[in-house]
């Protein structure tokens, strides 16, 4: 009996560790969200001319960004896969009776979801309670909420497909830093994580809309706030699906090519 109690205690302590880490994450996200909104509020106060997106819509945009961070960040730290590749443990992975692409894909997806669930609810809860103009607003209609969830899920699949490409490229470069860092950074910039995309100048927006990155974060958030109408959202889903087909297809081909000539490192 004593053993069970101590195991239970250990597991509890272990869980608490993660909870404190999650709590710290929540505090960080709240702070960042507040700061970003304050900056935007300050910009808007003397903005003068008509702006392409309203302040409450922006607040929702920022809070969703902070709450869903682990769903939209291109650079989600998972050194495990990198180590698999660079240390040669990839050999074990190849012995598994599953498709490696599918296996990794599922793993990355699950990791992001579990991290998001722990963090998004408290962040959103507090964001709803804040005073104006920082308060998170409700979507204009339940339809928008449903469309938002669909868009976010499709976006998440696009995101994981992009990050898979990053992992696969490690087969060739053998070093996850450097060029990949640049790739991840520019991807986040193009997804609207630095500055909300509607605030960019027109020429840059046109470039961004031609790339897959904005479908992962910018598009679902704007559907939520009603900045993109329900009608337009419906019309956009086929584009998201097309990107999924393209990116996953590319990833599978690249994976097969990389595995064909894989050199297992070390012993």
């Amino acid at each position, binding site marked *: 009996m004593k053993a069970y109690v101590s195991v239970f205690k250990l597991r509890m302590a272990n869980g608490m560790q993660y909870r404190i880490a999650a709590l710290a994450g929540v505090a960080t996200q709240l702070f960042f969200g507040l700061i970003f909104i304050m900056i935007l509020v300050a910009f808007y106060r003397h903005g003068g001319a008509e702006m392409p997106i309203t302040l409450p819509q922006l607040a929702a945009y920022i809070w969703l960004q902070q709450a869903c961070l682990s769903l939209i960040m291109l650079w989600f730290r998972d050194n495990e896969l990198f180590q698999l590749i660079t240390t040669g443990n990839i050999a074990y992975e190849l012995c598994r009776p599953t498709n490696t692409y599918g296996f990794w894909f599922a793993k990355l997806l699950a990791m992001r979801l579990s991290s998001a669930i722990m963090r998004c609810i408290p962040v959103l809860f507090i964001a709803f309670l804040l005073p104006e103009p920082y308060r998170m607003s409700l979507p204009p209609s339940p339809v928008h909420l449903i469309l938002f969830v669909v868009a976010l899920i499709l976006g998440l699949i696009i995101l994981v497909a992009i990050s898979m490409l990053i992992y696969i490229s490690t087969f060739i470069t053998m070093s996850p830093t450097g060029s990949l860092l640049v790739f991840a950074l520019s991807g*986040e910039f193009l997804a609207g994580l630095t500055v909300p995309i509607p605030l960019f100048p027109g020429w840059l927006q046109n470039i961004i809309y031609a790339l897959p990155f904005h479908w992962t974060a910018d598009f679902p958030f704007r559907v939520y706030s009603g900045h993109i109408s329900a009608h337009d959202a419906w019309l956009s889903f086929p584009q998201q699906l097309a990107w999924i087909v393209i990116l996953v297809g590319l990833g599978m081909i690249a994976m097969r090519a990389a595995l064909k000539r894989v050199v297992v490192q070390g012993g």
Partner: protein
Amino acid sequence: MKLFGEYCLILFKSQLQYRASFLLLSAGQFLIPLTSLAGLYFLFERFGSIEGWNFYEVALIFAVIHMTFALSECLSRGFDMFSTLIVNGEFDRLLVRPRSTVLQVLGSKFEFTRIGRLLQSAIVLGWAISGLSVDWTAWKVVVLALMIASGTFIFTGIFMIMAALSFWTIQGLEVANVFTDGGREMSQYPISIYQKWITRFFTFVIPFGCVNYLPLMYILGRAEDGSGGVGFLYSLAPLAGFVFIVPCLLVWRVGVRHYRSTGS
């Protein structure tokens, strides 16, 4: 001080052993603040100004803060990574040596790849200065240098407090990011644009405002209206950053006294 220099030199040499990786990482560091800078630029293109500050004025602050952050990350990486020293019990080794623990922890790690970030901020600083019409006096240059030095002290102080906390928690705390990364993001803009309670907290408790908003008012000559003494007073504000390190050192002292080895 001589010892500190030698620590620097040895670690610099050891990092240069992996030249390609060093260069790549430095290049990466060069690019990281680039997206924030681009964001800043596009926001100003859209809005023109923020609370009466124009792009070059904010860019000056942006450059100063990123410089100080790069410097402190380079120099006080030892404190940033300190919880690993505690976890694997290596701190015991530092305690038996006849030198101060602060010096040894500082010397345990330097991150010279931050040179990339430093370089980038220096370029932005040059750009901002060339875009501003400020009549520079010798004292203003000194104030600018003080801002950078003092900001480095502030970040180092925060790293130090967080390191000291791991005497109690053993593990590093992620919440530290609010004050380091969060402080960096926040003080890219003149601190006066925020809500009063944030401005107050980050002026009087953690004196970011003293390396950003107050001395900037002096450099831009905005503090001159009213009594003449105010401007000079503002130019002395960066000194608060040096004062800030004192309580941090105290917390560190208490922490060291509290220290119990993890034994492994």
